């Protein structure tokens, strides 16, 4: 089936104007390849992330189970389970899942052939009142066991108790994506944990994007302001779960879930501020439920997203004029952009080099649920988009938790429903 030619344009464009500016040539420009799909794995429990070896071996995480690996033979080895899990060759009894937290991101070391390192982001109770860690593991030769666990980051905040917020249970806004960039630096995305002090804090490393080496040490040039933790690459984030690197420049670009409004795609610069600051008493706000203004005003009831954005901006350019401007804000709506990758290779045709963003779908206050994968054509400077189109899915949609391009050039998509798909351009 040919790709659907749905184009999301800026809301300021009237429909009539859109018709006038979308001639056949522009539509042809958005034409992507015909897609087919296969189900790689099914009946998983909240599959959260994947990472590949060059031969197609696929490590994957399930939030409340742990880390496993799918071998090219089709066999699956369960490697590291969270506490109380069965069937794994080892378990971390301190590892747990709660709400959005659990075993989240996974990454393979660029020098895996030499060091056999894989990394996972997981909640752990080794630190009171619970926290998130980045674990480095050594995988044995036949990919049946992991050993030599080293916690290279052990101080990522976690939300331990429920608060009076939507989705206010423990484990909320937990971040969790880990990715190596082309230079071999490890990026770690963290969430604000519904704690208003976290995003702009110089020392609490929630609401941040960290850039570290394989030992957890900061990378020179992270450029965070004086007094900030040197591991911080960017700060002032709400809950980044999608990060990918532009194929031509290596620049990191994040996809972030907005608060009842404004899902954002932002090209990051070292030391940048994402402009998220949900503290009471800031930017004209008064008190907020349990000291967190992130869903205000009127956090539990329907309201115009634009009015919300004016009161509690996702990127507050009035308070922080130098904050990183988003390239795209999903037409001011929040539908849960949560995963990101770049497509690369001639097999993708016009989509070669485009960003793909997975949306989980959140229908609140009249916003369409919007489960989908968007194809994003970022402007060269990363400060705007040339266009955003919706992928015509060759399978049923789902909550697109993770998107990764595999070594075979195909796009792999994990959905919370329990499937991992392989999407192949024809």
């Amino acid at each position, binding site marked *: 089936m040919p790709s659907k030619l749905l184009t999301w344009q800026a809301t300021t464009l009237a429909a009539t104007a859109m018709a006038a500016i979308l001639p056949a040539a522009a539509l042809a420009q958005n034409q992507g390849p015909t897609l087919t799909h296969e189900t790689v794995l099914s009946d998983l429990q*909240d599959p959260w992330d994947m990472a590949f070896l060059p031969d197609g071996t696929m490590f994957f995480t399930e939030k409340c189970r742990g880390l496993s690996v799918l071998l090219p033979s089709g066999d699956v080895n369960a490697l590291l389970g969270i506490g109380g899990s069965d069937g794994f060759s080892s378990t971390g009894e301190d590892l747990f899942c709660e*709400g*959005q937290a659990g075993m989240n991101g996974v990454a393979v070391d660029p020098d895996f052939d030499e060091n056999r390192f894989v990394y996972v982001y997981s909640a752990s109770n080794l630190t009171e009142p619970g926290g998130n860690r980045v674990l480095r593991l050594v995988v044995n030769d036949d990919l049946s066991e992991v050993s030599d666990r080293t916690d290279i980051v052990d101080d990522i905040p976690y939300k331990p108790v*429920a608060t009076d*917020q*939507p*989705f*206010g*249970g423990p484990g*909320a806004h937990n971040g969790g994506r880990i990715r190596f960039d082309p230079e071999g630096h490890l990026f770690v995305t963290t969430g604000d944990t519904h704690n208003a002090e976290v995003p702009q804090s110089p020392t609490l490393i929630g609401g941040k994007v960290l850039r570290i080496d394989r030992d957890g040490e900061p990378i020179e040039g992270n450029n965070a302001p004086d007094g900030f933790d040197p591991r911080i690459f960017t700060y002032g984030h709400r809950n980044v779960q999608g990060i990918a690197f532009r194929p031509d420049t290596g620049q990191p670009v994040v996809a972030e879930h907005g608060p009842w409004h404004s899902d954002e795609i932002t090209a990051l610069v070292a030391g940048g501020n994402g402009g998220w600051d949900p503290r009471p008493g800031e930017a004209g706000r008064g008190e907020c439920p349990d000291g967190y203004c992130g869903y205000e005003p009127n*956090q*539990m*009831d*329907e309201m115009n997203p634009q009015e919300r954005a004016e009161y509690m901006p996702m990127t507050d350019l009035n308070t922080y004029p130098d904050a990183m401007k988003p390239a795209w804000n999903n037409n001011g709506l929040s539908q849960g952009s949560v995963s990101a990758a770049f497509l690369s290779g001639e097999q993708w045709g016009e989509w070669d080099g485009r960003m793909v963003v997975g949306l*989980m*779908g*959140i*229908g*609140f*206050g009249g916003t369409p*649920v919007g*489960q989908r994968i968007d194809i994003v054509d970022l402007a060269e400077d990363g400060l705007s988009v040339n266009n955003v189109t919706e992928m015509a899915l060759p399978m049923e949609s789902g*909550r697109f*938790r993770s998107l990764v391009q595999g070594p075979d050039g195909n796009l792999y998509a994990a959905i*919370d*429903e*329990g499937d991992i798909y392989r999407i192949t351009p024809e």
Partner: protein
Amino acid sequence: MKIPTGTALLLALAVPAIAQEPPAADIAAGEKMYASSCARCHGRTGRGMASFPPVEGKDVDYLVGRLEQYREGENVGPNSALMKPVAAKLSDEDITNLSAFIAANFQ
């Protein structure tokens, strides 16, 4: 035809009892509604996803009670903001059908 007295008495007792039975649930209608309105958060098989709780293993009374609470605007748990607008649109029949489908299929 003469109806024996005892039988007539039984019939007289039975008719009101039948009339008071709630309408039978339309499980097929519940299935359709679940797929369109519930599955995106609670999962295709009701086991819950991410921040959204499972609905599997719940009996009809529990499900009807919760849906009625949300329909009435009560806050029950951290996702009430999402559930209340959904439940507000449900009729008694919808709640009966949905609850019957979930209880019968997601154990």
